[in-house]
């Protein structure tokens, strides 16, 4: 396990494959407790694949993913459940259960894993919804919500068990700029007030500059981490063409003309 106390997730020598196709080839990085850590990269670079391995949905071809001292790639049965209770995941399309109201969605993990009374679960569920600005929508069905509300409800459900790490898959994809900016502010607020560690997959530049404490950028051709660090620093100082293009939203021609 890690020596430094403030490392909450450690990814070591990690390789991911689909069949024989290598998606990510031997990467290692750490996520520090309390930070907003962003995984970024162009389409098809393996961002979502990495995230799905980090939350234990897939087994890696090689390597370890250690969350709070426990290896999620090896944990099974009881240990795996205990580990999963420490993380929360908000999926790209919300993945709210369509047959339950918004409040019931948030209350579901509380019902399954705690001995809280019904009233207590109700209040906690409503508090989580209030936290993401969804007070007043408790009794609605997911199909009655707008895109932004679905993402916020998914975030509230991910936070139901007060996890220490929240994983968000493309939180601002498909949202209008205002809703997307609001969601970014919400993430920052939650991170600062609750001290939750965020691992966010996104390729929305504005979001990245607003929320990210630290980023890693994955690259499709090398199948590896091509850049890591503060996004503004990378934008201004990186000499790698792919990174420059990404942060400045440029094509090859534009970049060539500039240099």
């Amino acid at each position, binding site marked *: 396990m890690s020596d430094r106390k403030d490392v909450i997730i450690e990814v070591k020598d990690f390789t991911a494959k689909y069949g024989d196709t290598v998606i990510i080839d031997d990467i290692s990085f750490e996520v520090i407790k309390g930070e907003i850590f962003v995984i970024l990269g162009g389409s098809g670079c393996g961002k979502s694949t990495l995230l799905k391995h980090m939350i234990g949905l897939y087994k890696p071809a090689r390597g370890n993913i250690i969350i709070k001292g426990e290896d999620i790639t090896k944990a099974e049965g009881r240990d795996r459940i205990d580990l999963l209770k420490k993380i929360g995941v908000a999926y790209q399309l919300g993945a709210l259960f369509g*047959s339950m109201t918004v409040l019931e969605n948030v209350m579901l993990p509380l019902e399954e894993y705690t001995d809280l009374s019904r009233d207590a679960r109700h*209040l906690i569920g409503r508090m989580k919804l209030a936290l993401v600005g969804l007070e007043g929508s*408790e009794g*609605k069905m*997911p199909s009655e919500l707008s895109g932004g509300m679905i993402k916020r409800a998914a975030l509230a459900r991910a936070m139901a068990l*007060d996890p220490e790490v929240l994983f968000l898959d493309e939180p601002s994809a498909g949202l209008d700029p205002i809703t997307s900016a609001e969601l970014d502010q919400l993430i920052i607020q939650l991170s600062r007030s609750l001290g939750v560690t965020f691992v966010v997959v996104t390729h929305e530049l504005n979001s990245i500059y607003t929320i990210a404490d630290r980023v890693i950028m994955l690259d499709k051709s090398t199948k590896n981490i091509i850049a890591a660090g503060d996004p503004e620093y990378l934008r201004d100082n990186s000499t790698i063409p792919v990174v420059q293009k990404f942060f400045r939203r440029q094509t090859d021609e534009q970049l060539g003309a500039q240099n």
Partner: protein
Amino acid sequence: MKDHEAAFSPPSVEASKDQDNTLVLKIKGRLDVYSTGKIWKDSSYELEKSTPRKLIINGEGIEYCDASGIALLIELRLIQEKKGGVFELRGLSEDNERLYKLFNFDLLAKPEGEGKPPSGNIVERVGKTSWEMLEELRVHIYFTGRVTFGLLTAALNPFKIRWKEVFVTCEKFGANSLFIIALVNFLVGLVIAFQSAIPMQQYGAQIFVADLIVIAYFKELGPLMTAFVVNGRSGSAFAAELGTMKVNEELDALDTMGLDPVNFLVVPKVLAALFMLPLLTVFGNLFGLLGGLVVILSMGFTFQTYINQITASGTYTMLLAGLFKTLFFAVLIAGVGCLSGMRASRGPSAVGDAATTAVVTGIILMIVVDGIFGVIYYILGI
């Protein structure tokens, strides 16, 4: 990790009451989502029991507190303030204080938001339901018209039909269901023959089992059993397919491309059903008769006797009358399946509901149509 958690003590609550009706609750230990439940009941019980004028929460002993712990504090405040009492929170650490202030108490004090308002009184509901039924009928009539029109247009321009789609559907609808249709009809024929043989034996009329089977099969059982099986298999599949397309906005995409979903999707399916269902019914009849044959042979009659008996009482008119009905069944199965799919609503159960509606509506309508044909054939003397 586990040692880390063990460093905190389990939560506890201690109540003490002053003279001037003030209740002091001392909360200690680790308040997280798993442990808070243990003291939730105790603390709210203490509060409900004593109804103090003033409630003081002493949080000095709280070692760790997450949003669920804060929920307990808010709950106690809600109870206290609902009764008009005074609430005071003392000794909370800076972190926990900040967390506590994060939640808007006034919002939580309000009743929670409801979904759709419940519908009105009984008169209103009866009216609404009747209107919905009429609306349903209108949609069916309208859809029947559109499909009929689509079929006529297709008949006038046979080159415009998507024949590839028709043949693929023929394979799925017809060829792939041949086995189950053979099996079901064989077994039904066998069972009917066997059950009727027992009482007929009392009158020495066993040989008429053959007549019974052939008449029942040609006129009713063959067409109906085959149509039911196909309805369950393909009607639901059509509904699921079009329902998924509806949910994925594929139907809207067709619409905006100027392609009529009825002509593009429904007509090939209806055509395939029209081709295949009579053929399947022929096989159904054959296997039903084979089922009867097994019983006849087991009663000691010869194969030739069975054939003679069948050809004597079964007529071509009978057979064709039965097959003619299946054309209507075919349109019903494909049409109802497609319509249910196209009318699927949003949400995760939409496709499942559409498939159920397709099968149930299909069966009911087929029975009705079969009844109408029964009357017509009786009048015609078939």
